[in-house]
């Protein structure tokens, strides 16, 4: 998000999902789209069927990579040099969109000077992608009128995640593939409302709608509405809360004043955060922990107070999908048991602080959001009801929403080129830890599995933690399909059932983090991108051996 915010001014998909139908070239990077975003994959397969070209950048030979015209199977963590190589080829072959750069962007000369230093042979050596493939990718992407980039966590979950994202934005600006229909840069968002949670400022550094914490006008507007002065200093991020505490953690500075109490709503950091041992030590060490969730999660068992929350079927409310579409969820049933919706739980606590947060309905809360947040200015429930939702920005009641962003000009004015340089992964492979572990998600499960693992159909399809390994590595370790394998990193140990597959390159392993039996984040490293604070989930060094039965 920080990457697109600095280059374009807005951290969201520039296009709508359906615009993919009309793309001529789709470049998919760091996304197992088929499994993680099935509807997006469906559009991509459709346009490929109709003759569009598909380029996939991924260290794994995923399902979508098998359909690609060009699969750049790069060495993990080398997105920046690869993209610089592609951009250098575009300059060499004179496929640059000069008019677009002149009219819409800034800082191009710094970018060009950097690219002219790039040596393609060196890029090929760093990335393990041949020069010929790099040139071909550059031609396919740059020559088409309507090229779309879709990327996901494979790009962002690196210590250089922000710079990775900026590299893709640079590529789009270099060829003018943005600011129009059917062409743009599209980060695919993971959870159903991760876009909305960002928009609503469940973030330590902005106010709703990404309004500045420092702007006196904005602060005054909120003060008028909320009746209190807003705190001035920026807050700390999730990883600083769970790793910056009284317990020392690798790659983190200890906060001078660590967190002593937490309120956690519908999250399970005990499985989802890197370095679980540190998370557990931090949470156990807190003076006070409150968790609100629908199940007794691994995090909830550590709490002093647990509130039973209502699920999505038990409330009225809006969620914002990856393409910025704000949609209304209608209430199907009354809350299960004695559970309550989260806004009611919070209002209950607030009233004990002497602050009134009772609203008549969720529609009334949205009215307050509309009045305070220009991005959501026209998202009233009565407008969303009986429609398929509206895409932000939507400034007022008469606005029909926005299909694609940055029409005529970028949100920040001019798009800014941000030249990036290669950063080696935080944890290099060694003789003792020779395998590179990539973590991600599986088709049948969702995040920490609290919901999907209680769904019997999904469990039937996928019931245990697997690890993917190249057959050659399997042979060397004496493994056959279905054998148990023990994986160790410098931080922890997990056992998996092995799956031998040529989806993996030799020397690389892949597993998902849905299973508490194999808490993968005991293995992962806590190092993160210094700007976006996104952990390096995609690379850590491990060793693997067969478990004797």
């Amino acid at each position: 998000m920080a990457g697109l915010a600095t280059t374009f001014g807005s951290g969201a998909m520039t296009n709508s999902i359906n615009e993919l139908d009309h793309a001529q070239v789709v470049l998919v990077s760091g996304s197992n789209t088929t499994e993680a975003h099935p509807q997006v994959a469906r559009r991509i397969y459709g346009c490929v069927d109709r003759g569009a070209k598909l380029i996939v950048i991924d260290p794994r030979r995923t399902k979508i990579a098998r359909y690609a015209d060009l699969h750049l199977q790069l060495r993990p963590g080398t997105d920046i040099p690869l993209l610089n190589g592609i951009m250098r080829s575009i300059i060499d072959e004179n496929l640059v969109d000069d008019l677009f750069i002149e009219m819409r962007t800034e800082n191009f000369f710094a970018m060009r000077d950097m690219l002219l230093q790039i040596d393609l042979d060196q890029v090929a050596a760093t990335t393990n992608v041949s020069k010929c493939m790099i040139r071909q990718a550059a031609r396919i992407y740059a020559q088409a009128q309507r090229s779309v980039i879709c990327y996901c966590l494979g790009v962002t979950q690196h210590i250089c995640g922000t710079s990775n994202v900026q590299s893709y934005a640079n590529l789009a600006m270099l060829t003018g593939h943005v600011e129009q229909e059917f062409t743009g840069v599209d980060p695919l968002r993971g959870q159903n409302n991760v876009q909305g949670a960002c928009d609503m400022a469940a973030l330590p550094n902005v106010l709703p709608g990404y309004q500045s914490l420092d702007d006196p006008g904005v602060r005054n507007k909120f003060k008028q509405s909320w009746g209190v002065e807003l705190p001035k200093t920026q807050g700390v991020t999730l990883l600083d809360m769970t790793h910056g505490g009284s317990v020392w953690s690798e790659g983190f500075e200890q906060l001078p004043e660590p967190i002593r109490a937490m309120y956690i709503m519908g999250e399970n950091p005990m499985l989802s955060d890197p370095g679980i041992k540190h998370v557990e030590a931090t949470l156990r060490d807190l003076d006070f922990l409150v968790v609100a969730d629908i199940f007794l999660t691994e995090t909830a068992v550590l709490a002093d107070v647990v509130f039973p929350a209502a699920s999505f079927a038990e409330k009225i409310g809006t969620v914002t999908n990856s393409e910025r579409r704000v949609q209304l969820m209608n209430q199907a049933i009354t809350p299960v048991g004695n559970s309550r919706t989260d806004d009611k739980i919070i209002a209950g606590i607030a009233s004990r602080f002497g602050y009134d947060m009772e609203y008549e309905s969720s529609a009334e809360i949205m009215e307050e959001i509309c009045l305070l947040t220009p991005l959501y200015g026209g998202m009233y429930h009565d407008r969303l009801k009986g429609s398929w939702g509206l895409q932000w920005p939507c400034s007022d009641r008469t606005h029909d929403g926005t299909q694609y962003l940055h029409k005529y000009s970028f949100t920040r004015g001019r798009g800014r080129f941000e030249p990036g340089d290669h950063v080696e992964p935080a944890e290099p492979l060694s003789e003792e830890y020779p395998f590179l572990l990539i973590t991600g998600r599986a088709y049948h499960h969702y995040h920490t599995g609290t919901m999907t693992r209680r769904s019997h159909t999904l469990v039937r399809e996928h019931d245990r933690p697997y690890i993917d390994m190249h057959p050659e590595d399997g042979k060397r370790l004496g493994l056959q399909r279905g054998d148990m394998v023990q994986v160790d990193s410098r931080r922890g140990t997990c056992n998996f059932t092995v799956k031998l597959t040529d989806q993996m390159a030799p020397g690389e392993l892949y597993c998902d983090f849905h299973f508490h039996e194999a808490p993968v984040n005991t293995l992962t490293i806590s190092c993160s991108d210094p700007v976006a604070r996104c952990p390096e989930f995609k690379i850590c060094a491990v060793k693997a051996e067969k478990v004797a039965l």
Partner: protein
Amino acid sequence: MRDVLSVCTYCGCGCGLYLHVENNQVVGASPSRNHPVSRNNLCVKGWHVHEFIHSPDRLSDPLVRKDGRLVPVSWNEALDVAAAGLKGVKERYGPDRIGVLSSAKCSNEENYILQKFTRAVLGTNNIDHCARL
């Protein structure tokens, strides 16, 4: 039986789907034909999105830790304990020693309310969620 239009809770695609309701129980889900994203199609998670809702593991009553164990209590008691605990830390250490994690699984309205609570009532900007995970 009636059908209620909702949005799939699993991924960022945001498929429109109908929840089939019988006797206050969600018994099935099916795609919306005209929805711009789902277009009469759901993935395996979407088709089975109703299965966790009535799981016997669902939390029903508030729990408070007493003598090291989490025991069911009334809503009033749980809210009192939660408010007192947060107040205690705020008074002892100051508001910036409290951290809040919001949820990408909850609605916009709930996220808005929690960040308002964090900023206006607790008095800190220490709020974040799992966007980076």
